[in-house]
Protein backbone atom coordinates (compact mmCIF):
# COMPACT_ATOMS: atom_id res chain seq x y z
CA UNK A 1 0.00 0.00 0.00
CA UNK A 2 1.47 3.32 -0.95
CA UNK A 3 2.37 5.52 1.97
CA UNK A 4 2.12 8.55 -0.24
CA UNK A 5 -0.50 10.86 1.17
CA UNK A 6 -0.05 13.96 -0.86
CA UNK A 7 -1.77 16.36 1.40
CA UNK A 8 -1.93 20.03 0.62
CA UNK A 9 -1.30 21.48 4.04
CA UNK A 10 1.43 24.01 3.65
CA UNK A 11 0.87 24.18 -0.09
CA UNK A 12 -2.88 24.32 0.37
CA UNK A 13 -5.15 27.28 -0.20
CA UNK A 14 -5.00 30.04 2.34
CA UNK A 15 -7.00 33.18 2.86
CA UNK A 16 -4.62 36.03 3.48
CA UNK A 17 -5.06 37.32 7.01
CA UNK A 18 -6.79 34.22 8.34
CA UNK A 19 -3.82 33.10 10.39
CA UNK A 20 -3.48 36.49 11.97
CA UNK A 21 -7.19 36.67 12.73
CA UNK A 22 -7.07 33.32 14.48
CA UNK A 23 -3.97 34.24 16.47
CA UNK A 24 -5.16 37.62 17.64
CA UNK A 25 -8.38 36.02 18.93
CA UNK A 26 -6.19 34.07 21.36
CA UNK A 27 -3.82 35.06 24.10
CA UNK A 28 -0.09 34.72 23.29
CA UNK A 29 0.30 31.77 25.70
CA UNK A 30 -2.65 30.05 24.03
CA UNK A 31 -1.01 30.41 20.63
CA UNK A 32 2.09 28.74 22.02
CA UNK A 33 0.08 25.93 23.63
CA UNK A 34 -1.65 25.34 20.32
CA UNK A 35 1.66 24.87 18.58
CA UNK A 36 2.90 22.55 21.29
CA UNK A 37 -0.26 20.47 20.96
CA UNK A 38 0.11 20.31 17.20
CA UNK A 39 3.48 18.58 17.57
CA UNK A 40 5.05 20.80 14.93
CA UNK A 41 8.83 20.42 14.80
CA UNK A 42 11.20 22.82 13.05
CA UNK A 43 11.19 22.38 9.31
CA UNK A 44 14.74 23.50 8.66
CA UNK A 45 16.19 20.08 9.36
CA UNK A 46 17.06 20.22 13.06
CA UNK A 47 13.46 19.50 14.10
CA UNK A 48 13.30 21.23 17.46
CA UNK A 49 9.68 21.35 18.78
CA UNK A 50 8.45 24.71 17.57
CA UNK A 51 5.98 25.43 20.37
CA UNK A 52 8.65 24.73 22.96
CA UNK A 53 11.12 27.08 21.28
CA UNK A 54 8.47 29.81 21.23
CA UNK A 55 7.75 29.22 24.90
CA UNK A 56 11.44 29.62 25.80
CA UNK A 57 11.54 32.86 23.84
CA UNK A 58 8.33 34.14 25.40
CA UNK A 59 9.65 33.41 28.90
CA UNK A 60 12.76 35.55 28.47
CA UNK A 61 12.47 38.57 30.71
CA UNK A 62 14.43 40.82 28.36
CA UNK A 63 11.85 43.08 26.65
CA UNK A 64 13.64 43.52 23.32
CA UNK A 65 13.24 40.40 21.18
CA UNK A 66 13.62 39.57 17.53
CA UNK A 67 11.99 37.05 15.20
CA UNK A 68 14.12 35.85 12.31
CA UNK A 69 12.89 33.82 9.36
CA UNK A 70 15.76 31.63 8.21
CA UNK A 71 15.52 31.90 4.43
CA UNK A 72 19.16 30.98 3.90
CA UNK A 73 18.06 27.72 2.28
CA UNK A 74 21.40 26.34 1.23
CA UNK A 75 21.29 22.59 1.77
CA UNK A 76 22.09 21.12 -1.66
CA UNK A 77 18.98 19.66 -3.20
CA UNK A 78 16.66 21.95 -1.23
CA UNK A 79 14.54 24.55 -3.00
CA UNK A 80 11.20 24.32 -1.17
CA UNK A 81 11.62 27.69 0.54
CA UNK A 82 12.19 29.25 -2.87
CA UNK A 83 8.66 28.13 -3.76
CA UNK A 84 7.15 29.25 -0.47
CA UNK A 85 8.74 32.68 -0.66
CA UNK A 86 7.59 33.30 -4.22
CA UNK A 87 4.19 31.58 -4.27
CA UNK A 88 3.01 31.47 -0.63
CA UNK A 89 4.56 34.53 0.89
CA UNK A 90 1.56 35.66 2.96
CA UNK A 91 1.60 32.55 5.14
CA UNK A 92 5.29 33.03 5.82
CA UNK A 93 4.89 36.66 6.81
CA UNK A 94 1.82 35.96 8.90
CA UNK A 95 3.66 33.14 10.64
CA UNK A 96 6.38 35.61 11.57
CA UNK A 97 3.88 38.12 12.89
CA UNK A 98 2.17 35.41 14.91
CA UNK A 99 5.57 34.52 16.36
CA UNK A 100 6.14 38.13 17.31
CA UNK A 101 2.72 38.25 18.93
CA UNK A 102 3.25 35.05 20.89
CA UNK A 103 6.78 35.75 22.10
CA UNK A 104 6.71 39.52 22.56
CA UNK A 105 8.99 40.55 19.71
CA UNK A 106 8.57 43.84 17.90
CA UNK A 107 10.91 43.29 14.98
CA UNK A 108 11.13 40.57 12.37
CA UNK A 109 13.78 39.90 9.74
CA UNK A 110 13.89 37.60 6.79
CA UNK A 111 17.50 36.55 6.32
CA UNK A 112 17.39 35.82 2.60
CA UNK A 113 20.24 33.97 0.91
CA UNK A 114 22.14 36.10 -1.58
CA UNK A 115 21.27 33.79 -4.47
CA UNK A 116 17.57 34.67 -4.05
CA UNK A 117 18.12 38.39 -4.66
CA UNK A 118 15.81 38.06 -7.67
CA UNK A 119 12.89 37.76 -5.22
CA UNK A 120 13.50 41.11 -3.60
CA UNK A 121 11.20 43.46 -5.53
CA UNK A 122 8.08 41.32 -5.01
CA UNK A 123 9.09 40.27 -1.52
CA UNK A 124 9.60 43.82 -0.36
CA UNK A 125 6.28 44.99 -1.75
CA UNK A 126 4.49 42.11 -0.01
CA UNK A 127 6.21 42.98 3.25
CA UNK A 128 5.20 46.59 2.83
CA UNK A 129 1.55 45.50 2.77
CA UNK A 130 1.93 43.88 6.15
CA UNK A 131 4.03 46.65 7.64
CA UNK A 132 1.28 49.12 6.84
CA UNK A 133 -1.44 46.93 8.37
CA UNK A 134 -2.80 47.87 11.74
CA UNK A 135 -1.91 45.13 14.18
CA UNK A 136 -2.82 44.79 17.87
CA UNK A 137 0.88 45.08 18.65
CA UNK A 138 3.88 46.70 17.05
CA UNK A 139 5.77 44.51 14.61
CA UNK A 140 7.79 45.46 11.55
CA UNK A 141 9.45 43.12 9.08
CA UNK A 142 12.45 43.81 6.89
CA UNK A 143 14.83 41.80 4.73
CA UNK A 144 18.52 41.20 5.35
CA UNK A 145 20.46 39.69 2.48
CA UNK A 146 23.04 36.97 2.88
CA UNK A 147 26.03 36.97 0.53
CA UNK A 148 26.99 33.42 -0.27
CA UNK A 149 27.71 31.33 2.81
CA UNK A 150 26.01 27.95 3.36
CA UNK A 151 26.92 27.90 7.03
CA UNK A 152 24.71 30.95 7.62
CA UNK A 153 21.79 28.56 7.52
CA UNK A 154 22.89 27.46 10.97
CA UNK A 155 20.96 29.65 13.37
CA UNK A 156 23.90 31.07 15.31
CA UNK A 157 25.96 31.63 12.18
CA UNK A 158 22.94 33.46 10.79
CA UNK A 159 22.72 35.60 13.90
CA UNK A 160 26.43 36.38 13.78
CA UNK A 161 26.04 37.39 10.15
CA UNK A 162 23.19 39.68 11.13
CA UNK A 163 25.36 41.13 13.85
CA UNK A 164 27.83 42.25 11.19
CA UNK A 165 30.35 39.51 11.76
CA UNK A 166 31.70 36.50 9.94
CA UNK A 167 29.07 33.75 10.03
CA UNK A 168 30.80 31.74 12.73
CA UNK A 169 28.48 29.70 14.99
CA UNK A 170 28.77 30.27 18.71
CA UNK A 171 29.18 27.92 21.62
CA UNK A 172 25.85 26.78 23.07
CA UNK A 173 24.57 27.40 25.74
CA UNK A 174 23.53 30.20 25.84
CA UNK A 175 21.02 29.61 23.03
CA UNK A 176 19.62 32.12 20.52
CA UNK A 177 16.37 32.47 22.47
CA UNK A 178 18.48 33.70 25.39
CA UNK A 179 21.09 35.77 23.61
CA UNK A 180 21.21 36.24 19.86
CA UNK A 181 20.76 39.20 17.54
CA UNK A 182 22.35 42.21 19.21
CA UNK A 183 22.77 39.94 22.25
CA UNK A 184 19.00 39.90 22.83
CA UNK A 185 16.54 36.97 22.75
CA UNK A 186 16.10 35.83 19.18
CA UNK A 187 13.67 33.33 17.73
CA UNK A 188 14.94 31.72 14.54
CA UNK A 189 12.63 29.49 12.51
CA UNK A 190 12.64 28.14 8.99
CA UNK A 191 10.43 29.54 6.20
CA UNK A 192 8.38 26.37 6.06
CA UNK A 193 7.89 26.39 9.83
CA UNK A 194 6.34 29.86 9.71
CA UNK A 195 4.17 28.91 6.74
CA UNK A 196 2.94 25.80 8.58
CA UNK A 197 2.22 27.83 11.71
CA UNK A 198 -0.24 30.02 9.81
CA UNK A 199 -2.18 27.00 8.61
CA UNK A 200 -2.20 25.43 12.07
CA UNK A 201 -3.60 28.61 13.60
CA UNK A 202 -6.46 28.50 11.08
CA UNK A 203 -7.20 24.76 11.23
CA UNK A 204 -6.22 23.84 14.78
CA UNK A 205 -3.72 21.52 16.46
CA UNK A 206 -5.64 18.26 15.97
CA UNK A 207 -5.98 18.80 12.23
CA UNK A 208 -2.19 18.84 12.00
CA UNK A 209 -1.42 16.27 14.71
CA UNK A 210 -3.56 13.58 13.13
CA UNK A 211 -1.21 13.56 10.15
CA UNK A 212 2.20 11.98 10.06
CA UNK A 213 3.58 9.69 12.75
CA UNK A 214 3.86 9.78 16.52
CA UNK A 215 7.17 11.58 16.65
CA UNK A 216 6.80 13.39 13.33
CA UNK A 217 3.44 15.07 13.15
CA UNK A 218 2.06 16.66 10.06
CA UNK A 219 3.31 16.99 6.52
CA UNK A 220 6.64 18.06 5.08
CA UNK A 221 7.75 19.71 1.87
CA UNK A 222 10.16 17.65 -0.17
CA UNK A 223 12.52 19.06 -2.79
CA UNK A 224 13.19 16.27 -5.26
CA UNK A 225 15.88 16.47 -7.94
CA UNK A 226 18.40 14.33 -9.75
CA UNK A 227 17.60 11.33 -11.92
CA UNK A 228 13.79 11.62 -11.78
CA UNK A 229 11.20 12.37 -14.45
CA UNK A 230 9.29 14.88 -12.38
CA UNK A 231 11.61 16.97 -10.20
CA UNK A 232 10.03 19.65 -8.04
CA UNK A 233 8.53 20.46 -4.66
CA UNK A 234 6.03 17.99 -3.18
CA UNK A 235 4.19 17.78 0.12
CA UNK A 236 3.80 14.41 1.81
CA UNK A 237 2.78 13.26 5.26
CA UNK A 238 5.77 12.38 7.36
CA UNK A 239 6.30 8.64 7.66
CA UNK A 240 6.14 8.29 3.88
CA UNK A 241 8.31 5.52 2.46
CA UNK A 242 11.20 6.51 0.23
CA UNK A 243 10.32 3.84 -2.33
CA UNK A 244 6.85 5.30 -2.72
CA UNK A 245 8.32 8.75 -3.30
CA UNK A 246 10.68 7.38 -5.94
CA UNK A 247 7.81 5.83 -7.79
CA UNK A 248 5.72 8.98 -7.49
CA UNK A 249 8.34 11.19 -9.12
CA UNK A 250 9.31 8.76 -11.85
CA UNK A 251 12.69 7.50 -10.67
CA UNK A 252 14.01 4.54 -12.65
CA UNK A 253 16.98 2.26 -12.07
CA UNK A 254 17.75 4.14 -8.91
CA UNK A 255 21.15 3.29 -7.43
CA UNK A 256 20.98 5.40 -4.30
CA UNK A 257 19.26 8.44 -2.83
CA UNK A 258 20.76 11.23 -0.77
CA UNK A 259 18.05 11.83 1.84
CA UNK A 260 18.23 15.01 3.91
CA UNK A 261 20.67 16.78 1.63
CA UNK A 262 24.41 16.62 1.87
CA UNK A 263 24.16 16.56 5.66
CA UNK A 264 21.80 13.61 5.51
CA UNK A 265 22.41 9.99 4.68
CA UNK A 266 22.84 8.02 1.52
CA UNK A 267 20.27 5.28 1.14
CA UNK A 268 20.87 2.25 -1.07
CA UNK A 269 18.33 -0.11 -2.62
CA UNK A 270 18.09 -2.39 0.37
CA UNK A 271 16.84 0.50 2.49
CA UNK A 272 14.42 2.17 0.07
CA UNK A 273 11.50 0.79 2.07
CA UNK A 274 12.35 2.87 5.10
CA UNK A 275 10.08 5.75 6.12
CA UNK A 276 11.12 9.40 6.26
CA UNK A 277 10.50 10.89 9.70
CA UNK A 278 12.39 12.08 12.76
CA UNK A 279 14.25 9.07 14.09
CA UNK A 280 14.09 7.30 10.71
CA UNK A 281 15.49 8.63 7.44
CA UNK A 282 16.23 12.32 8.07
CA UNK A 283 13.23 14.48 7.12
CA UNK A 284 15.13 17.63 6.08
CA UNK A 285 13.28 17.40 2.79
CA UNK A 286 16.08 17.36 0.26
CA UNK A 287 16.02 14.24 -1.91
CA UNK A 288 18.66 13.76 -4.61
CA UNK A 289 18.24 10.62 -6.72
CA UNK A 290 21.15 8.82 -8.41
CA UNK A 291 20.58 6.23 -11.09
CA UNK A 292 22.71 3.22 -12.01
CA UNK A 293 25.04 5.26 -14.23
CA UNK A 294 26.19 7.60 -11.49
CA UNK A 295 29.66 7.27 -10.05
CA UNK A 296 29.24 7.33 -6.25
CA UNK A 297 32.87 8.22 -5.66
CA UNK A 298 32.39 11.32 -7.78
CA UNK A 299 29.23 12.12 -5.81
CA UNK A 300 31.03 11.72 -2.49
CA UNK A 301 33.92 13.93 -3.58
CA UNK A 302 31.44 16.57 -4.69
CA UNK A 303 29.86 16.45 -1.25
CA UNK A 304 33.15 16.62 0.66
CA UNK A 305 34.44 19.45 -1.50
CA UNK A 306 31.26 21.35 -0.69
CA UNK A 307 31.80 20.99 3.06
CA UNK A 308 35.50 21.75 2.86
CA UNK A 309 34.65 25.07 1.18
CA UNK A 310 31.57 26.00 3.18
CA UNK A 311 32.84 25.18 6.67
CA UNK A 312 33.19 28.44 8.58
CA UNK A 313 36.73 27.33 9.41
CA UNK A 314 36.78 28.03 13.15
CA UNK A 315 36.97 24.66 14.80
CA UNK A 316 39.60 22.01 14.27
CA UNK A 317 37.45 18.92 13.68
CA UNK A 318 35.32 20.50 10.94
CA UNK A 319 37.91 22.63 9.17
CA UNK A 320 40.65 20.05 9.21
CA UNK A 321 38.39 16.99 9.31
CA UNK A 322 36.47 17.82 6.12
CA UNK A 323 39.78 18.46 4.39
CA UNK A 324 41.33 15.20 5.61
CA UNK A 325 38.28 13.14 4.65
CA UNK A 326 38.43 14.42 1.08
CA UNK A 327 42.20 14.16 0.91
CA UNK A 328 42.15 10.66 2.39
CA UNK A 329 39.58 9.55 -0.14
CA UNK A 330 41.66 10.93 -3.00
CA UNK A 331 44.80 9.28 -1.70
CA UNK A 332 43.08 5.91 -1.44
CA UNK A 333 41.72 6.44 -4.96
CA UNK A 334 45.20 7.15 -6.32
CA UNK A 335 46.71 4.30 -4.38
CA UNK A 336 48.83 6.68 -2.25
CA UNK A 337 47.25 5.25 0.87
CA UNK A 338 46.13 1.68 1.44
CA UNK A 339 42.48 0.86 1.99
CA UNK A 340 43.30 0.29 5.65
CA UNK A 341 43.60 4.07 6.00
CA UNK A 342 39.80 4.10 5.79
CA UNK A 343 39.76 2.93 9.41
CA UNK A 344 41.50 6.11 10.51
CA UNK A 345 38.96 8.14 8.55
CA UNK A 346 36.14 6.33 10.35
CA UNK A 347 37.72 7.28 13.68
CA UNK A 348 37.99 10.83 12.42
CA UNK A 349 34.27 10.74 11.59
CA UNK A 350 33.43 9.64 15.13
CA UNK A 351 35.45 12.49 16.57
CA UNK A 352 33.94 15.04 14.19
CA UNK A 353 30.44 14.00 15.22
CA UNK A 354 31.40 14.13 18.86
CA UNK A 355 33.37 17.37 19.02
CA UNK A 356 32.57 19.79 16.19
CA UNK A 357 31.34 23.16 17.34
CA UNK A 358 28.16 23.16 15.27
CA UNK A 359 25.80 20.97 13.26
CA UNK A 360 27.75 21.41 10.03
CA UNK A 361 30.88 19.71 11.33
CA UNK A 362 28.81 17.10 13.14
CA UNK A 363 27.00 16.22 9.89
CA UNK A 364 29.91 15.88 7.47
CA UNK A 365 30.52 12.27 8.55
CA UNK A 366 26.94 11.29 7.58
CA UNK A 367 27.36 11.24 3.81
CA UNK A 368 30.95 10.01 4.09
CA UNK A 369 30.12 6.96 6.15
CA UNK A 370 26.81 6.11 4.50
CA UNK A 371 28.03 6.38 0.89
CA UNK A 372 31.15 4.34 1.53
CA UNK A 373 29.27 1.73 3.55
CA UNK A 374 26.77 1.38 0.71
CA UNK A 375 29.36 1.31 -2.07
CA UNK A 376 32.49 -0.12 -0.53
CA UNK A 377 33.37 -2.06 -3.65
CA UNK A 378 32.93 0.87 -5.96
CA UNK A 379 34.84 3.31 -3.80
CA UNK A 380 37.41 1.44 -1.74
CA UNK A 381 38.01 -1.85 -3.44
CA UNK A 382 38.25 -0.68 -7.04
Amino acid at each position, binding site marked *: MSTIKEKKVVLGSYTAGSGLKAAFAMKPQEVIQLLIDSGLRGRGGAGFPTGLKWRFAANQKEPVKTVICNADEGE*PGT*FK*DRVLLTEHIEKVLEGMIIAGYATGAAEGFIYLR*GEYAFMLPVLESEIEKFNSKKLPFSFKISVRMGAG*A*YVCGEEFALIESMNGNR*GEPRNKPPFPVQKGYLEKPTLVNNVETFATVSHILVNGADWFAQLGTDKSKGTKLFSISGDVQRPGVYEFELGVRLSDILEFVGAENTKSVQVGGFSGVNVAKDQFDRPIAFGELPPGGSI*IVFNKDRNMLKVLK*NILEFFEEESCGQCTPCREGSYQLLKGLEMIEKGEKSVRYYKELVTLCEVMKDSAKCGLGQSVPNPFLSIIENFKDEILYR
Partner: protein
Amino acid sequence: MDCRTGALVSFIERSVKDHGAGRENLLPVLRDVNDEFGYVSGSALIEISRVMDISIGEIHGVATFYSFINVENKGSYVIRLCKTISCDMKGKEKIEKTLERELGIKFGETSSDGLFRLEYSNCMGMCDKGPAMLVNNKLFDSLTPESVLDIVSEYRRKRL
Protein backbone atom coordinates in the same frame (compact mmCIF):
# COMPACT_ATOMS: atom_id res chain seq x y z
CA MET B 1 46.31 52.73 -1.03
CA ASP B 2 43.93 55.52 -0.22
CA CYS B 3 42.38 56.66 -3.49
CA ARG B 4 38.98 57.55 -2.18
CA THR B 5 37.01 59.34 -4.83
CA GLY B 6 34.20 61.75 -4.07
CA ALA B 7 31.77 59.30 -5.62
CA LEU B 8 32.93 56.49 -3.36
CA VAL B 9 32.83 58.61 -0.23
CA SER B 10 29.35 59.97 -0.81
CA PHE B 11 28.03 56.55 -1.79
CA ILE B 12 29.28 54.96 1.39
CA GLU B 13 28.05 57.82 3.54
CA ARG B 14 24.62 57.46 1.99
CA SER B 15 24.58 53.71 2.40
CA VAL B 16 25.51 53.97 6.08
CA LYS B 17 22.89 56.67 6.55
CA ASP B 18 20.25 54.42 4.96
CA HIS B 19 21.07 51.27 6.90
CA GLY B 20 22.39 52.73 10.11
CA ALA B 21 25.88 53.11 11.51
CA GLY B 22 25.75 50.18 13.95
CA ARG B 23 28.00 47.17 13.39
CA GLU B 24 24.96 45.04 12.49
CA ASN B 25 24.70 46.98 9.23
CA LEU B 26 28.14 46.03 7.96
CA LEU B 27 27.02 43.30 5.57
CA PRO B 28 24.27 45.45 3.96
CA VAL B 29 26.82 48.25 3.45
CA LEU B 30 29.35 45.81 1.98
CA ARG B 31 26.71 44.45 -0.38
CA ASP B 32 25.79 47.98 -1.49
CA VAL B 33 29.41 48.84 -2.26
CA ASN B 34 29.93 45.49 -3.99
CA ASP B 35 26.83 45.97 -6.14
CA GLU B 36 27.66 49.54 -7.08
CA PHE B 37 31.38 49.32 -7.73
CA GLY B 38 31.76 45.64 -8.50
CA TYR B 39 34.03 45.07 -5.54
CA VAL B 40 35.12 46.44 -2.17
CA SER B 41 38.42 48.20 -2.79
CA GLY B 42 41.08 49.19 -0.28
CA SER B 43 39.77 52.73 -0.47
CA ALA B 44 36.25 51.52 0.20
CA LEU B 45 37.54 49.65 3.24
CA ILE B 46 39.13 52.81 4.54
CA GLU B 47 35.97 54.86 4.06
CA ILE B 48 33.71 52.23 5.63
CA SER B 49 36.17 52.00 8.50
CA ARG B 50 36.07 55.75 8.97
CA VAL B 51 32.30 56.06 8.85
CA MET B 52 31.36 52.97 10.83
CA ASP B 53 34.31 53.00 13.25
CA ILE B 54 35.24 49.38 12.57
CA SER B 55 38.84 48.37 12.01
CA ILE B 56 39.93 47.70 8.45
CA GLY B 57 41.06 44.18 9.23
CA GLU B 58 37.70 43.28 10.70
CA ILE B 59 35.83 44.65 7.68
CA HIS B 60 38.11 42.77 5.32
CA GLY B 61 37.77 39.63 7.40
CA VAL B 62 33.97 39.87 7.19
CA ALA B 63 34.04 40.65 3.45
CA THR B 64 36.25 37.68 2.57
CA PHE B 65 33.97 35.31 4.48
CA TYR B 66 31.13 35.79 2.02
CA SER B 67 31.59 34.27 -1.44
CA PHE B 68 29.70 37.00 -3.25
CA ILE B 69 31.57 39.98 -1.82
CA ASN B 70 34.53 40.65 -4.10
CA VAL B 71 37.60 42.17 -2.49
CA GLU B 72 39.43 42.60 -5.76
CA ASN B 73 38.35 43.91 -9.12
CA LYS B 74 37.07 40.86 -10.93
CA GLY B 75 35.50 42.65 -13.86
CA SER B 76 32.03 43.96 -14.65
CA TYR B 77 30.14 40.67 -14.63
CA VAL B 78 31.07 37.84 -12.33
CA ILE B 79 29.60 34.59 -13.57
CA ARG B 80 29.15 31.99 -10.86
CA LEU B 81 28.29 28.53 -12.16
CA CYS B 82 26.79 26.01 -9.74
CA LYS B 83 29.03 22.98 -9.38
CA THR B 84 27.02 21.05 -6.80
CA ILE B 85 25.91 17.56 -7.73
CA SER B 86 22.34 18.13 -8.97
CA CYS B 87 23.43 20.73 -11.51
CA ASP B 88 26.46 18.61 -12.28
CA MET B 89 24.17 15.73 -13.20
CA LYS B 90 22.12 17.97 -15.48
CA GLY B 91 24.92 18.93 -17.83
CA LYS B 92 26.99 21.58 -16.06
CA GLU B 93 30.10 20.36 -17.86
CA LYS B 94 28.76 21.42 -21.23
CA ILE B 95 27.96 24.85 -19.85
CA GLU B 96 31.46 25.03 -18.35
CA LYS B 97 33.09 24.35 -21.69
CA THR B 98 30.78 26.70 -23.56
CA LEU B 99 31.62 29.56 -21.22
CA GLU B 100 35.34 28.94 -21.27
CA ARG B 101 35.40 28.76 -25.05
CA GLU B 102 33.16 31.76 -25.58
CA LEU B 103 35.03 34.02 -23.19
CA GLY B 104 38.47 32.68 -23.94
CA ILE B 105 39.36 32.19 -20.27
CA LYS B 106 39.45 29.44 -17.71
CA PHE B 107 37.46 29.39 -14.50
CA GLY B 108 39.17 31.64 -11.97
CA GLU B 109 40.17 34.18 -14.61
CA THR B 110 38.83 37.49 -15.89
CA SER B 111 38.47 38.16 -19.62
CA SER B 112 41.05 40.53 -21.08
CA ASP B 113 38.39 43.16 -21.86
CA GLY B 114 37.59 43.21 -18.13
CA LEU B 115 33.97 42.27 -18.72
CA PHE B 116 33.57 38.71 -17.48
CA ARG B 117 34.93 36.61 -14.65
CA LEU B 118 34.29 32.89 -14.42
CA GLU B 119 33.90 31.30 -10.99
CA TYR B 120 32.20 28.33 -9.44
CA SER B 121 29.58 28.55 -6.79
CA ASN B 122 27.72 26.06 -4.65
CA CYS B 123 24.06 25.03 -4.67
CA MET B 124 21.75 27.94 -5.56
CA GLY B 125 18.45 26.26 -4.84
CA MET B 126 17.66 25.59 -8.52
CA CYS B 127 18.23 21.83 -8.35
CA ASP B 128 14.98 21.08 -10.20
CA LYS B 129 15.95 23.52 -12.95
CA GLY B 130 19.66 22.99 -13.40
CA PRO B 131 22.21 23.87 -14.56
CA ALA B 132 22.11 27.31 -13.00
CA MET B 133 24.41 30.30 -12.74
CA LEU B 134 24.52 33.75 -11.22
CA VAL B 135 25.73 36.79 -13.09
CA ASN B 136 26.35 39.34 -10.34
CA ASN B 137 22.95 39.33 -8.60
CA LYS B 138 20.89 37.80 -11.41
CA LEU B 139 20.04 34.12 -11.39
CA PHE B 140 19.72 32.12 -14.61
CA ASP B 141 18.46 28.55 -14.57
CA SER B 142 17.67 25.74 -17.03
CA LEU B 143 20.85 26.59 -18.90
CA THR B 144 21.78 25.15 -22.27
CA PRO B 145 24.85 25.98 -24.33
CA GLU B 146 22.61 28.10 -26.58
CA SER B 147 20.92 30.02 -23.77
CA VAL B 148 24.30 30.69 -22.18
CA LEU B 149 25.64 32.20 -25.38
CA ASP B 150 22.55 34.40 -25.57
CA ILE B 151 23.03 35.58 -22.02
CA VAL B 152 26.67 36.45 -22.65
CA SER B 153 25.74 38.43 -25.78
CA GLU B 154 23.10 40.37 -23.92
CA TYR B 155 25.60 41.36 -21.28
CA ARG B 156 28.09 42.30 -23.95
CA ARG B 157 25.46 44.61 -25.39
CA LYS B 158 24.91 45.93 -21.86
CA ARG B 159 21.26 45.10 -22.15
CA LEU B 160 21.07 43.26 -18.85
